């Protein structure tokens, strides 16, 4: 093949890009090997002309010189070996072992770019995952095969929450196999260490695969890391029939790498300097979640991203929210009140919730309880902003009851321990206890028969 030919005519180096001149017969997206004496680097073609190729180098270009570089084209796209023996192992951002053990021996190799799933072949996700966190199970239910990101801000406990979900959702049953794939893009070593330790303590590390492209790795490597992790996930889910939870952190870093690459290619930027294709690029990652007809396994994605200055309209959370099936938003105000998990009541949403809850799945009253909690809590927010102006004393009696409801909701329903694992029954029961603080007439989103059954009539909320 063309691997034999080595090109040495380098037209230039710019950022992560190398321009190779005089090349023939090179395809788009082909893998490139770059040798400069001692080291070997991997890259990919981004653009090919009749005699020139633009190559993106995953390991970065630092230390490369125009002279002395030898470039060869492999003739195929980036592939990684995939096998269930990869569980319990740690890899670098390009999928190479970094735990000191040798490469997994397998014949199965898969293209990291994947292929788009035929919408006809998808199975609509409906299976409820109990995370043991009331704010999620009760109001923003996670469904197997969903992509549900955590929108966070710097300093907030998104890692704690993701780890808690990973631990608590991974209850092993006899028929089904669960696994966690953790991909870190540009995060610090201690964040990665925290996840590894947390998985290890709960004994799920042996069922997990870890891909680390830490903050000190070349930024371009991060563009491949989520794809590598998802390629393994697809193998485990659809070849091996496992239920895979993929945690991707931090997608903001991924997007920044993409911006860096786009800017060194001289592309016309759209919002905040990010490329115009950021949406399509993110979709090519997020859409690799779900279930397929005729397959047992599933891929559930939980991307974590930090919103620069807590701004949800920043392009990264904004475009993510347009692709993912809802979002768990962490709120600084709750965080400052000392509430864990600080999951914002109103902007959080799970789009797949409607079909995964209710009779035969969770409980018949689930949807109505959630809707009522949302509606009543929205009213609390309005009353609070009014109280900030006129003072609590001036509020009507009903408004005061609402404030009481709001505080109890935050302190008892939302708030729970880092290791507290609530069943859905407990969550809904707590929900009704909160709603029982309000007079019955205020509960217009719940059915009458449910009020008769679950409402706790004493005016003090039942305790």
């Amino acid at each position, binding site marked *: 093949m063309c691997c034999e030919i080595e090109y040495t005519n380098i037209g230039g180096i710019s950022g992560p890009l190398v321009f190779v001149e005089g090349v023939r*017969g*090179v*395809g*788009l*997206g082909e893998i490139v090997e770059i040798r400069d004496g001692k080291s070997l680097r991997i890259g990919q073609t981004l*653009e*090919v*002309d*009749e005699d020139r190729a633009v190559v993106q180098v995953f390991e970065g270009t630092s230390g490369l010189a125009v002279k002395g570089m030898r470039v060869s084209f492999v003739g195929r796209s980036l592939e990684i070996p995939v096998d269930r023996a990869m569980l319990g192992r740690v890899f670098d951002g390009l999928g190479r072992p970094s735990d000191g053990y040798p490469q997994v021996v397998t014949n199965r190799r898969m293209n990291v*770019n*994947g*292929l*788009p*799933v*035929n*919408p*006809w*072949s*998808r199975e*609509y996700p409906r299976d409820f995952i109990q995370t043991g966190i009331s704010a999620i199970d009760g109001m923003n239910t996670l469904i197997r*095969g969903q992509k549900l990101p955590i929108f966070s801000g710097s300093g907030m406990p998104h890692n704690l929450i993701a780890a808690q979900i990973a631990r608590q959702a991974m209850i092993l049953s006899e028929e089904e196999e669960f696994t966690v794939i953790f991909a870190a893009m540009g995060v610090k070593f201690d964040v990665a260490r925290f996840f590894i330790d947390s998985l290890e303590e709960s004994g799920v590390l042996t069922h997990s695969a870890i891909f680390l492209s830490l903050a000190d790795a070349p930024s371009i490597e991060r563009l491949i890391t989520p794809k590598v992790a998802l390629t393994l996930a697809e193998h485990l889910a659809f070849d091996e029939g496992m239920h895979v939870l993929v945690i991707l952190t931090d997608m903001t870093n991924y997007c920044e790498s993409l911006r860096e690459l786009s800017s060194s290619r001289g592309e*016309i930027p*759209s919002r905040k300097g990010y490329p*115009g*294709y950021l*949406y*399509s690029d993110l*979709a*090519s990652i997020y*859409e*690799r979640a*779900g279930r*397929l007809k005729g*397959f047992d396994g599933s891929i559930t994605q939980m991307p974590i991203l930090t919103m620069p200055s807590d701004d949800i*309209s*920043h*392009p990264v959370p*904004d*475009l993510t*929210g*347009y*692709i993912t*099936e*809802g*979002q768990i938003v962490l709120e600084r105000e709750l965080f400052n009140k000392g509430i864990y998990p600080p999951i914002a009541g*109103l*902007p959080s949403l799970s789009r*797949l919730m*409607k*079909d995964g809850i209710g009779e035969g799945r969770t409980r018949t009253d689930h949807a109505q309880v959630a*809707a009522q909690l*949302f509606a009543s809590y*929205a*009213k609390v927010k309005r009353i609070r902003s009014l109280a900030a*102006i*006129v003072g609590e004393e*001036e*509020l*009507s009696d009903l408004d005061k009851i609402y404030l009481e409801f709001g505080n109890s909701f935050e302190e008892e329903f939302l708030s729970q321990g880092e290791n507290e694992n609530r069943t859905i029954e407990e969550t809904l029961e707590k929900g009704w206890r909160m709603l029982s603080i309000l007079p019955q007439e205020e509960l217009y*989103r719940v059915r009458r028969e449910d009020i008769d059954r679950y409402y706790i009539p004493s005016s003090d909320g039942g305790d």
Partner: protein
Amino acid sequence: MVSATETRNAPIEGKVISVNGPIVKAVGLTGVKMFDIAEVGPDGLIGEVIRLLGPVALIQVYEDNTGLKPGDKVISEGRPLSVLLGPGLIANIYDGIQRPLVGISEQCGSYIEKGVKLSALDVQKQWTFTPSAKPGDEVAEGQIIGEIEETPLVVHRVLIPPGVFGRLEDIVETGPRTIEDVIYTVQTKTGLYEGKLAGYWPVRVARPVRSKKKPFIPLMTGQRIIDTFFPIARGGTAAIPGGFGTGKTMTQHALAKWCNADIIIYIGCGERGNEMTDVLTEFPKLVDERNGRPLIERTVMIANTSNMPVPAREVSIYTGVTIAEFYRDMGYSVAVMADSTSRWAEALRELSSRLGDMPAEEGFPPYLATRLAEFYERAGLVETLSGAAGDISIIGAVSPPGGDFSEPVTQHTSRFVRCFWALDKTLADARHYPSISWVDSYTEYLNDIEGWWRELDEQWLAIRNEVMNILLEDHRLQQLVKLVGADALPMFQQFTLHVAEMIKNAFLQQNSFDPIDKYCSPEKQLKLLKVILALYERGGVLVKAGLTLKDITDLPSLSEMVRLKSEIPNNETNRIDEYRERLLGELESLKEQVLGV
């Protein structure tokens, strides 16, 4: 003139000289025309010629072109990008360039591989064709010459294609026919024309009509805030702008399910895969109340999800609207849901940026507005070539970045649509759905369609406007409430706030998952409005006469009002009248009790 059958020219062969993402440059394609189809590379990837610069043709490739090399061959047959129109479109699901997704999944499994070539319509399926014309008849373009039962809901009318006039030489008897059989021949001035059940039409060219008319019938959607407050006419255009999580897709789904068009074209353009799956699994199960048949039997789906190739996303809305025109020409009322036009605009931006075009606002190409206008202009109530009435309504979702309506796609779209359903984040956060804002939305069809409502009630517009005014008054008062609290307002204003709250909860808010509430008939909408108005008018008199708000809210029947929408089915609306009588009675006795003594 475009002919219905495919004209095959001699193929022209060229070769690739450069590949930049989905944009490929090729040389050697002498004689190729703008927007001609080209097959690129060893896999024969489908592409379209989008620019001709001297000897170089720029081709946008509709499939993943990883691995494509300079030197690979390009073949063009000189035919524009077209869709195949004929029986079998209904209940089908296609990608952006009309490849059948079911067929693709049978051929290559769960993933879409490149280079798949499949006919858009089943070529072996036997359709029972019943002719309605006979040999010797003079026929003209657009004329109906026979019928097929495409689904139990749709009678497929077979038309003489545009551009064909003459004497019908021959036509087959009633019997099973495939789309490849010649079913009739027409002696035209230029020769013998052989007609089949299916034919090609270029996607970027609007199908001809005799004339356009002013829309006057409302497209009933069963969604109260739309039908009553911001109605769209059949043949009209509407936009649904909203940030993520405000319920654009849910609103589109509700409209696709319950609007009373004959045919629904649902275009999932750059959106989530699971949403299309939702439509695919739900529509065969959902039954249309009016005829007891599954909704899928009137629906065509185009799915080009966000992870499918970007250029095919750009073309998907044209594919959809061309299919819509085909059914309109048969005399049907067609509704096109495009979700989302922002993703389409972004595809346009991405391609234009790869072409090195000078960008206008936010990187979008300067021709964005023109393209949007052209698309929405394909809607309308028309007199078809055969003289029948047909219409296309287009409802486009818009996804403004950050929910900011001042961005270019929302702004340009609002110039070309006459109905604007603005989704409101705060309503969505409170799970008030549909989260269409009654303050920021508007419609220009109110006067056009008033006549239709008058048949139901002479006073419809007056009632609608009065309720709308309560909502607007509420909006104004809420500014005050934010500063001083509701209790500081005069009693009548407090009462207005209470009635407005009732309108929001008992009328505007609608649960699309509730078996009764999901679809609200026009009669029920009107009766609910009258209940609210009865409370406002009679109660208002009492409040002005000195009663407190509490006297009114304590009325036993008042707490039931909010449940009328979900407890009284569409065929029992007389129970709403009974409720209204009871409410009026209670108000009356309250008046006697308090004021009489």
